[in-house]
């Protein structure tokens, strides 16, 4: 159980921010973040399943340690403290990506002109939920000490999706200053659910004579697609369905990534990209649940039958209980729906310096004339249902020898102000291994960490002839 939870926290992930990978031009997977990134190799083949493994999990407002610390304090007390210290803007996020295959190669259209084509397929899971504070307060306290308090049911905002993405990108170095790129994507959604446009409230209002009026105003919607296979009695059938959907048998969508790199001078680099400008049309295996009700309840009126004929308390109560039954009756539809993919922006500005000097001639080393150091700032932003998630990083990139590069980042985001990350790419011959992890300061005790991000992979690189 402990390990399962650990995995849950570790694998659950927040931001999809890959500040270490972005702009790390030796690692081909950076082209997934910016199709217009610089490429200085002839081609690559990602080791299937192992070319890009990415986990990112994050929570705001608390860490697992706040709740699960083995400090002898009452668990429920700790949970309450955490729940009360959070607000409805706090969130929990999880993102995971796995490259199934990927490769790239350059195509010479003329002696000078070169296009770099890269393609592949990856699987992605994303779960995101805001903390529905009012639900937590209502569940924990009830309405007794909360008369006149409006419990906002709109705070429930949750989305989850598993999908596979097939992509093909073109990267073109226009001249020494500009590199442009575009990547087309086909999404195949395996399963999706979202409930992000909820409204409604519950309030208990005291009225005259010590009376109470309970007002339920519900306008909630849950959209799902592709989850009915979970009811398949046979696990093998479930796997069959999954396999089919992984390979374009799911709900399909299209999207593009755009990006560029601009080098106004050899020392300066400006780059930016937009990822996942696209949508998925959910039409297969769709089930939507709708709860759109309004009910006021102020007690059962007793009408004494000796006094008046007509409605008795029993009739009244029957009516009230059927009203309540109706209140929680959920309508369902199979109407198809469209969802935009969460669009992501990456951009960075960096300064390159420190060329290698050959000591023998005290001149620039001809074997590696590139800059050995790079410092810069990187901005990441992503559209979430109710807000824009952002992160700002400062980074330093250093080449040690030709086969080893290291990048370190300091990131400020909604999760922390103490996020230091380290990434490394090392090559032994043509085989490249890279690993990148952030929040290193928290690794002594991951439970205290509010976010964890890890990427690693293996590639086979075809270097340029001159290399």
């Amino acid at each position, binding site marked *: 159980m402990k390990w399962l939870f650990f995995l849950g926290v570790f694998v659950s992930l927040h931001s999809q921010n890959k500040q270490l990978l972005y702009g790390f031009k030796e690692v081909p997977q950076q082209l997934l973040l910016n199709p217009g990134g610089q490429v200085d190799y002839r081609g690559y083949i990602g080791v299937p399943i192992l070319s890009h493994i990415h986990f990112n999990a994050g929570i705001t407002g608390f860490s697992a340690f706040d709740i*699960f*610390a083995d400090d002898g304090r009452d668990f429920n007390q700790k949970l309450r403290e955490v729940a009360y210290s959070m607000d409805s803007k706090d969130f929990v996020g999880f993102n995971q990506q796995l490259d199934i295959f990927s490769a790239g190669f350059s195509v010479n259209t003329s002696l000078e002109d070169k296009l770099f084509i890269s393609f592949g397929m990856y699987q992605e899971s994303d779960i995101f939920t805001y903390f529905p504070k009012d639900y937590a307060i209502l*569940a924990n306290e009830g309405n007794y000490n909360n008369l006149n308090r409006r419990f906002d049911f709109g705070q429930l905002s949750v989305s989850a999706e598993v999908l596979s993405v097939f992509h093909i990108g073109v990267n073109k170095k226009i001249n020494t200053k500009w590199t442009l790129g575009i990547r087309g994507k086909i999404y195949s959604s395996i399963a999706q659910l979202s409930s992000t446009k909820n409204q409604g409230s519950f309030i*208990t209002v005291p009225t005259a004579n010590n009376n*109470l009026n309970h007002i339920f105003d519900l306008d909630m919607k849950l959209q799902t697609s592709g989850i009915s296979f979970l009811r398949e009695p046979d696990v093998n059938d479930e796997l069959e369905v999954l396999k089919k959907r992984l390979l374009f048998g799911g709900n399909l969508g299209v999207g593009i990534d755009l990006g560029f790199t601009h080098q106004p001078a050899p020392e300066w680099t400006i780059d930016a990209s937009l990822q996942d400008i696209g949508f998925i049309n959910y039409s297969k295996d769709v089930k939507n649940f709708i709860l759109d009700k309004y009910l006021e309840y102020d007690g059962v009126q*007793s009408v004494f039958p000796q006094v008046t004929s007509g409605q008795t*308390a029993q009739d009244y109560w029957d009516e009230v209980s059927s009203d309540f039954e109706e209140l929680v009756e959920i309508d369902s539809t199979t109407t198809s729906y469209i969802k935009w993919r969460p669009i992501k922006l990456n951009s960075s500005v960096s300064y390159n310096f420190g060329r290698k000097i050959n000591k023998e001639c005290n001149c620039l080393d001809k074997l590696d004339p590139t800059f050995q150091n790079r410092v810069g700032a990187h901005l990441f932003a992503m559209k979430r249902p109710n807000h824009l998630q952002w992160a700002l990083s400062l980074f330093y990139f250093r080449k040690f020898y030709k086969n080893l590069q290291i990048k370190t980042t300091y990131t400020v985001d909604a999760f922390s102000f103490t996020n230091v990350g380290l990434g490394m790419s090392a090559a032994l011959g043509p085989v490249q291994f890279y690993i990148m992890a952030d929040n290193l300061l928290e690794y002594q005790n991951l439970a205290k960490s509010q976010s964890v991000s890890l990427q690693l992979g293996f590639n086979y690189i075809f270097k340029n002839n001159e290399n």
Partner: protein
Amino acid sequence: MKTQSFFIKYISLLFVLGTCFSCIKDTDFEQYDTLIIYPIVEANLVNAQEPAASFVDSSGAELPSISDQVIFDVFNSDFSVDNLIKAELVFGITNSINKAFQIKMDFYDSADALQHTFSIDIDNSPTNTPLFTEHIEVFENMNLLALKSTHKLEITITMISNPTSVVLTPDSEGSILLVSKGVFYLKISS
């Protein structure tokens, strides 16, 4: 070249170790087993308002009592039986009739056996000004078990002769208002 590969190996090792040996300390993830919440829910129950004339029949004679009953399947629902740890029924009675009353609440189970009963005495209001009486019936332990088996509730309002011997007529002033609500203390555990 030697230093290079050494360097690569060293850094790689550092990374791999760092990732593998990152750990979670001083935590006990089993604690979640004991998740318990104690919400307190307040809800209106039965309300009634009767003018003085309600206690006079068509021939003009006083009715000694009026009563009504309601089948409530809330107290004996599975949810209540499992999670209700205490309940308070709060009655507020406002009387402006120049008659004293007794309000009696009888709790019957599904076999129509009386499980619990209590009554509230209401003073008369000689000048027809509203007089407020509050009664809180607390259900704990045995009482609570009685409440959890309650299927039917009967309310009886009985007139008590008062010292002034006023006799109600269809034109008598005042009314009796009954408002009741329940405060339910729940314990819900995961």
